[in-house]
């Protein structure tokens, strides 16, 4: 009994939920390095539309993506109230612009549902799965798809 409980416990993963273009998304907590307030970025010339620019994170130059724009939602106008979620992607840091970070939730793997089949190829690619919680749909962001754009897309 004890063992079973522990096993169950270890399978539970913590996710950080946040909102982008009025939709709720989440990322596994260990993918996130830190969360910062938005501050104006430096424009990166000839960058794709979803790249807002670069910012200085303690001496490192990191790119900031507009997550809404990346996911094909309405492009957000970054403001002081927004946050930047700094994630670690294979050793490279990347900042994702989000409207607000809400909470940390613990999720059992069984609770994760496959992304329902939809027309949009982008959506299928960027959303790894969904979680239903308190009548809300929480979308799990596929960080690899977001972080590494296809060659032809650029």
């Amino acid at each position, binding site marked *: 009994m004890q063992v079973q409980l522990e096993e169950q416990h270890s399978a539970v993963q913590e996710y950080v939920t946040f909102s982008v273009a009025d939709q709720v998304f989440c990322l596994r907590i260990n993918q996130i390095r830190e969360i910062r307030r938005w501050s104006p970025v430096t424009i990166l010339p000839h*960058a794709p539309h979803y790249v807002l620019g670069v910012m200085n994170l303690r001496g490192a130059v990191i790119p900031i993506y507009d997550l809404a724009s990346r996911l094909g939602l309405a492009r957000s106008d970054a403001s002081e109230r927004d946050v930047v979620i700094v994630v670690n992607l294979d050793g*490279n840091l990347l900042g994702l612009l989000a409207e607000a970070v809400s909470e940390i939730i613990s999720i059992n793997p069984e609770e994760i549902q496959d992304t329902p089949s939809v027309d949009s190829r982008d959506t299928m690619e960027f959303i790894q799965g969904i979680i239903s919680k308190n009548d809300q749909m929480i979308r799990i962001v596929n960080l690899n798809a977001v972080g590494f754009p296809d060659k032809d897309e650029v």
Partner: protein
Amino acid sequence: MSSSIQDTFFEECEELLEAIDEGLTAIDDGNWDGETVNAVFRAVHSIKGGAGAFGLDKLVGFAHTFETVFDGLRSENQKLDGKLAQLLLRASDNLSDLVVEARGGKPADPETHGAVTNELQAYLEAEGLGEEVDLSDFQPMVLDLGFTDDQPSQASFLIRFRPHATLYDSGNEPLFLFQALAELGEIDVTLDESRLPKLESFDHEEAYLSWEIRLTTDKSEAVVDSVFEFVHGLCDLEISEEVAGSKEDPGLDTSVDASSVKDNSSEHTKQSSNTSTPNAKASAKPDAKAANSTLRVDLERVDRLINTVGELIINHSMLAQQIHNLDVDDLRAVENELEAFKSLAREIQECVMAIRAQPVKPLFQRMARIVREASAATGKVTRLVTEGDATEVDKTVIERLTDPMTHILRNAVDHGIEKPEARLAAGKSEDGEIRLTASHRSGSVSIEIRDDGAGLNREKIREIAVEKNLIPRDADLSDSEIDSLLFLPGFSTASEVSNLSGRGVGMDVVRNSVMALGGRITISSTPGAGTVFTIILPLTMAVMDGMVVSVADQTMVVPITSIIETIRATEGAVHCLGPKENMLSVRGSFVPIFDVAQVLGLRAESRDPLNAVFLLVETQMGGCGALAVDTIHDQRQVVIKSLDGVCGETAGVAAATILGDGKIAMILDPESILAEAPAAKALA
């Protein structure tokens, strides 16, 4: 066996291989004397000795054969001709392959190894030195850490010496005895005054003192004892030999190991090659090298230091900006100190960068080998001349230049240099010449590769470019534009793939690797007289002087090295040419204007050139352009932050930097801005 000793051996090997190469090149040039041969012999010998200690039999075997050849040359019984010199050069190449193999790298080509070994053997037999090559004669000496008694090694004696009062009576003085001991070796004297009584009971005729002396010497116990010959019976004397290493860890320390390796090996060859005097030199040489006061430091530590100094400089500019913003009347004193801080930081930085700087000599020597191999494969005779070997370049640059330079040199031999008959027919000397020159040039390093071959076949280049749809058939190209076609991706002139240069790697790869180092490569060619490749690299990879400018509300930095002058346009200085192009008149000549904001896609509309400030820039190709920016702020030193991993290659932008206010600014690449714009025009 500690692997760190082995690492040291391999590091030494690199230096030794360099020395061998250097000597052999001198021999090949006919510019040598007996000392040159000796130097090479010693280097080969040291490699053999070290390899023997680590049980690297294959390396030992080859080094021995190689060394035997030199032994013959050294005794001056043999003549050294060009053919032999070539053989020796190939042998040295093979030796360096074997070292790589022994180190766990790429295995040496067994065919080459066999061929070279056989040729060396054949030579030795022909010269009557054959019996020396018998390898069974050479037993690799495995490092023995226990010191054997028959070796004249250092011994340590512990001497307890307590003089009686009578010793002083007869006029003896302990100090003189100690001085005599000091002449035998190193002594360490400890005074034991424990028997000294209180002053009131002190008898001035009594002897209270005793000494303990530790003597390290190569003399025997009898010799030590003889020092006390005249005081026997007048003192308590005890001489005992301490067993070496008994006090310390039996493993001993590295330096002892290394020296014993050398001793053992030179000792051994004395028996096998029957020449004793030069062997003494062979063992003396590495020791002299050890005295050279250099320090091997982990590269990572140096890099950390460089980064930290970079942060220090950023920090300085932040501080300067903060102070500047303060609303205080008299800041002069603070600003003076700040200026001093800046120059100190700059000095530290220069020192740190100098640690990474390395002469290009090893790179050039590696290239000599490439030329040799390429010449042998194509049946051409090519001589490599190097100049400016001592020019120092960042270590990373040297490492990353190897591949591009190899490619250029192979091409030069394969396509550039003509066959001997063709050269003679063209009225040139039979031997082709490739000249490698390194030099410092106003804040950058220039490396030139010049061959005296046939030059580029422009018609053929053009034809191929048209065939491969790289240029339109009717394109009107200048000579230098045609030459630059070589750098286009997908261009390869070899109509048949030769196993030498045509291996799918084009000149575009060469150009990309040079550009990745922040450098440029240019080509120029004169038909019949040869081709010159010029690689221009930045001196440092971390910091540069830049001019801070504003472009469409963004702060950007332009490298100072590319700016010739700054110009504010006056009425009548800007002239339209065609529908969109503007030209700036600079003292009678017209220079095309590039609106930076437009080129970078930050602003769609071209602005009124009269409100702009122009930076007159020159490219390495000799092109000129005027970059239009909004305002110029100041000039300062900036730390280069690579954009690798942030985004792909961005046209017009070289890297980024962090300004005093903590914001990031793009560092512009004038060359690519100038290159970008005409290309866009040509397409439109």
